[in-house]
Every structure is written in structure tokens, then in C-alpha cells.
């Protein structure tokens, strides 16, 4: 590996020296400035778009940001007073289901990988590679898994809220595992050593020292994972967040349900202007929830981050 590093270093040194010698550096002043301007432009494009997405949704949806939106059920007849109560409740239920499923699972997996796993073992490397890959599998593929294994197949839950929760849980599992591992890793080894040297067992050390110190990090990771799950649309289309439900879900394991993003999708693809406005209003609600969640995550991270 050092050889590769040396190779890069010598190559870089040669390139730069050549650049010096051929005098291309003379016009460097304005070239550097232009280069920097281009870089700033790159990042600005992304940020301007973010602002545009929010503003466009806001100004389009503003007329329908009223209490009817929350109070009323979706309706295709009373377009001007149609709401999305069932979608909001569906999403709330979905997220509760995701949280209770993925947090214990993901945190446990992260503790194993960070504290107990022997990285020289093939199965540990397989698990790690698998999690990295899972993080990049398209979300709609999770929808297919949900449809074949959770809605039908072995679990056979039917098109119910928890089928959606479980599908989204699998989708965000890698996020929770990665962020929790990061949080656990940031607890210094000296704390573990101190506890072990007192005769605490490994698990006691983790339970009483490592986990309490990493709670803020785990919470941040959980919120970020939930905020990813809350906006996911594609997999829910497959596991039956049917787009037109005019009643709140009966429970986690019975009855049809809809969700905010799938409802937004349904409205966005209708040609009538009223539905577009409704979709935009839904996006504002969704983005509002997301911004609150993200701010909370950043706040927790800043407030509780310990400099060891």
C-alpha cells in the first residue's frame, strides 16, 4: 500500500513541477478564480434547487394550507375541501411501526458488529459487505420483497399498515446500523478499558458505559432513518398503501391504509388544478415534518456531542 502512496506522491510532484516549468502558472490568478467560481456554482445549483422545491410547493399549496387539510378525509368530489387525515394517520402509524421494529434490531446489530465481531471471520465480513450493499439497493426492490414475502408469501400479513412498516424498516435498517456504529465507535476505548479493569463483564461495560454515552448519536441516527422512511413512496405503492382510503387505519394488522407520500403522488398525477394544489399542500406538510425532524437531529447532535 505504501508503494501506491509513493506512486501517487511522486506522480503528483512530477505533474506540479512540470506545470511550474511550462509556465502555465502565469495566468494562474484569474484561472484559479474562475475555477473557484465554477465550484461554488456547482454547490449553489444544489442549494438553489432545494430552495426552489420548497418555495414552489409552498406557493402552489398555500391556498390549501387550511384546517380542512388535516380535518377532512381525501375526496375526489369535494376537491376544494378535500383533506388528508387518513394519510397523516397512516404515516404516523407507519412510523411507529418502523421505530419499534428497526431500533431494537438495528442497535443490536450495530453493537454486535462494533463490540463483538471478529473482523477476520468470513461471516462478519459477509455481514458488513451485505449491509453496505443493502444501503444502495433501490427502494422499489424492497417493495417487491415486501409484496412477495410480507404481504403475501411466508408472512402473509395482507395489505396492512405493519406490512408497510416492516418493508420500510428493512429499507432503513442499514442507516440505523451505520449511524449507531458511528455513535458507539466515538466512545473512547479508555472508558471501556476502565470498566473492564474494574472487573465488569463486556456486556455490563457496554450496557452501563458505552450505550448511555452513545444515546444521543443513536437518537440522531434513528431520527434521520425515520426521516428517510417517512418520505419513501415507491415501496409503499407495492405493499398496498392504496391511494384512495377515506378512513383511518383500524390497526397495525388490519384494514387498508394510505400514507402522506402515496397520497401526494396520487394527487400530483391528476390533471385537475385543485389536486395539484392539494399535492403541493401535502408536500409542505411532509417537508415541514422533515425539517422539524432534521433540526431535532442536528440539535441533539450539537447539544450532546461530547468531546472526550
Amino acid at each position, binding site marked *: 500500500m505504501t508503494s501506491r502512496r509513493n506512486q501517487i506522491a511522486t506522480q503528483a510532484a512530477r505533474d506540479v513541477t512540470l506545470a511550474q516549468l511550462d509556465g502555465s502558472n502565469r495566468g494562474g490568478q484569474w484561472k484559479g478564480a474562475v475555477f473557484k467560481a465554477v465550484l461554488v456554482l456547482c454547490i449553489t445549483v444544489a442549494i438553489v434547487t432545494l430552495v426552489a422545491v420548497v418555495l414552489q410547493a409552498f406557493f402552489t399549496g398555500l391556498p390549501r394550507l387550511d384546517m380542512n387539510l388535516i380535518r377532512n378525509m381525501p375526496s375526489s368530489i369535494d376537491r376544494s375541501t378535500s383533506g388528508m387525515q387518513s394519510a397523516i394517520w397512516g404515516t404516523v402509524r407507519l412510523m411507529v411501526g418502523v421505530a419499534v421494529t428497526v431500533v431494537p434490531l438495528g442497535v443490536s446489530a450495530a453493537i454486535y458488529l462494533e463490540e463483538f465481531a*471478529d473482523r477476520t471471520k468470513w461471516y462478519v465480513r459477509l455481514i458488513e459487505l451485505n449491509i453496505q450493499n443493502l444501503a444502495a439497493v433501490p427502494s422499489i426492490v424492497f417493495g417487491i420483497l415486501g409484496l412477495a414475502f410480507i404481504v403475501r408469501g411466508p408472512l402473509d400479513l395482507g395489505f396492512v399498515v405493519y406490512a408497510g412498516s416492516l418493508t420500510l424498516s428493512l429499507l432503513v435498517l442499514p442507516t440505523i446500523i451505520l449511524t449507531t456504529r458511528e455513535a458507539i465507535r466515538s466512545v473512547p476505548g*479508555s472508558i471501556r*478499558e476502565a470498566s473492564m479493569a*474494574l472487573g465488569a463483564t463486556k456486556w*455490563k461495560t457496554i450496557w452501563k458505559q458505552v450505550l*448511555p454515552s452513545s444515546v444521543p448519536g443513536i437518537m440522531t441516527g434513528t431520527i434521520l432513518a425515520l426521516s428517510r422512511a417517512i418520505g419513501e413512496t415507491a415501496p409503499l405503492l407495492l405493499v398496498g398503501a392504496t391511494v384512495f382510503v377515506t378512513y383511518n387505519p383500524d390497526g397495525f394488522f388490519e384494514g387498508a391504509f394510505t400514507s402522506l407520500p402515496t397520497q401526494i403522488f396520487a394527487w400530483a398525477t391528476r390533471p385537475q388544478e385543485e389536486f395539484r394544489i392539494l399535492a403541493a399542500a401535502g408536500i409542505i406538510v411532509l417537508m415541514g415534518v422533515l425539517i422539524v425532524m432534521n433540526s431535532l437531529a442536528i440539535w441533539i447532535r450539537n447539544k450532546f456531542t461530547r468531546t472526550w
Partner: protein
Amino acid sequence: MSAVTTPDPQGDIVSTPSTTHADPRSGLPDAPSGVMETVGLNVYYGGFHAVHDVDLAFGRNEITALIGPSGCGKSTVLRCLNRMNDLIPAARVEGSVNYHGIDIYGPKVDPIEVRRRIGMVFQKPNPFPKSIYDNIAYGPRVIGMQVDNMDDHVERCLRQAALWDEVKDKLKESGYSLSGGQQQRLCIARTIATAPDVILMDEPCSALDPIATSAIEDLMTDLREDYTIIIVTHNMQQAARVSDRTAFFTARPDETTGNRTGLLVEYDKTSQIFENPRDQRTEDYISGRFG
């Protein structure tokens, strides 16, 4: 306090009366009484041979200092004595470390039980991110030690660590609110809270200023009354000031790989090592010609 004397399981009779420690150096037996000993101790990190053939015996109620240039394996030896090296996945230990005649690397021995008897204080003060009180109470609680009154126990440990007067009014404050020297004394109080037999100290003063260092050194001398202390230090003056016996280590580079393997050069009473070393390498190091 330590008037109780018992025969050592290996037959070395610890017959010294309790007055011995009034002036330990004058009454120091020629051979250590053998609370712990290493026999043919070799340590490897993966393929790297870190420590070669160390035979050392540590005397009860004595302070033994391990000194030597950096990379000589003295900390590695120390960490073998309570199996802290187990926490490093690639570490491998050969030979034996006997504690009251029991090989702590024996097949039935549980490292957790070993560490309950042989405590450790680390180079950098590492209090838990908890209150001062909970820093002390954590150990007894976590090992299930019977303590009649935890408040009294915490007070006694802090008194023993000469910290009580400074912290008695802020026991609920975080351990991190203390100065570096206070933190290290808190760590020592935390270690004695589980009533260990032996205390290992890995360069406990290297992160402290001279005043804090002197407080810790005084504390060590006091603690010798009740505990057996083994300390790694790179500060020769410190070894000379506090220790009863000194082991000098050095590192020998491997001719083919260049890796440095630590080995024990000389082990004797501290006065002997500093005033009349037998080995040329020890003399060079002591007189500052090397390391």
C-alpha cells in the same frame, strides 16, 4: 492495618511484622514475597514478538517499578498481569503469570475474576462520564460486591485516595469537572473501591503537572500499606522516589525484521538499581547515556 500475615501458598513465609512498612526500604526482604510472578512470559502481537522471556516476582505491600526506554514492552508486561491484553484481538501470551500460585492464564481462569482482584490505573485519567459519586460506586455495583452503606464506602475510598476534602461538597458533579490530577486520584479511588489486592499503574503521572504528580506519588506510598502496587514509568526519578524494587527493560531489534522485542535486563531493589547497577545497559540508561 495489615497486621494479618498469612503463609504464602508457595511456601515463602511472609513473616514480617506489621511494623515492616514503617520504613519499608530498610526492612525490605531480599527476595520479594511473591504475590504475583511471571514465568517465561512472552507476548506476541500477531507475528510481532513484543516481549521476550520475562521472569519477575512482585512483593506484597511493595511498589515495583517497571522502567526502560519506550517500546521496551514494559506496558505490555503490565497489561498481561490482569489480562487486559485479552482485549487486543491479535495479542497472544505464552508462559505463565501466577497470582498466589494460580496461573491467571490457566484454562479455567476467568479474566473477569482476575481483574476484580488486580485493578488498573491508566496513563491518561479516564473517569466515566458520570458523577464523582457514581464513578466510585460503579465498580462495587457492577461486580455485585456487598457494601453495607455505599455513601460510607464512597467516602472511605475518596479519603484513601486523598481526594475527599476536595470533592466532598460536589459528589454529584461530573468527574470531568475535576482537574487532571484530581481526575487521576478519582481513578485511583475508583480502582480501590472494588477492594483489589494488586493495583497496576500504567504511567499514571505522565499526563500530569509536577504538583499533581507529587500528590499521586504521596498517595502511592500511603496505598502501599494495603495494596501491592506495580507501576510503569518512564520517569526514572519517580521510580527512585516511590518504588521498592525496580525492573529495567530494554528493547532489542530483531536482526532480520527490525522489530523491537522487549526484554528484562535487571531486576533488583531500587536502591541497588540506581546506586549500583550490575548491567552496563542499566547503568547507561540510569545515567542518561541512552534512551
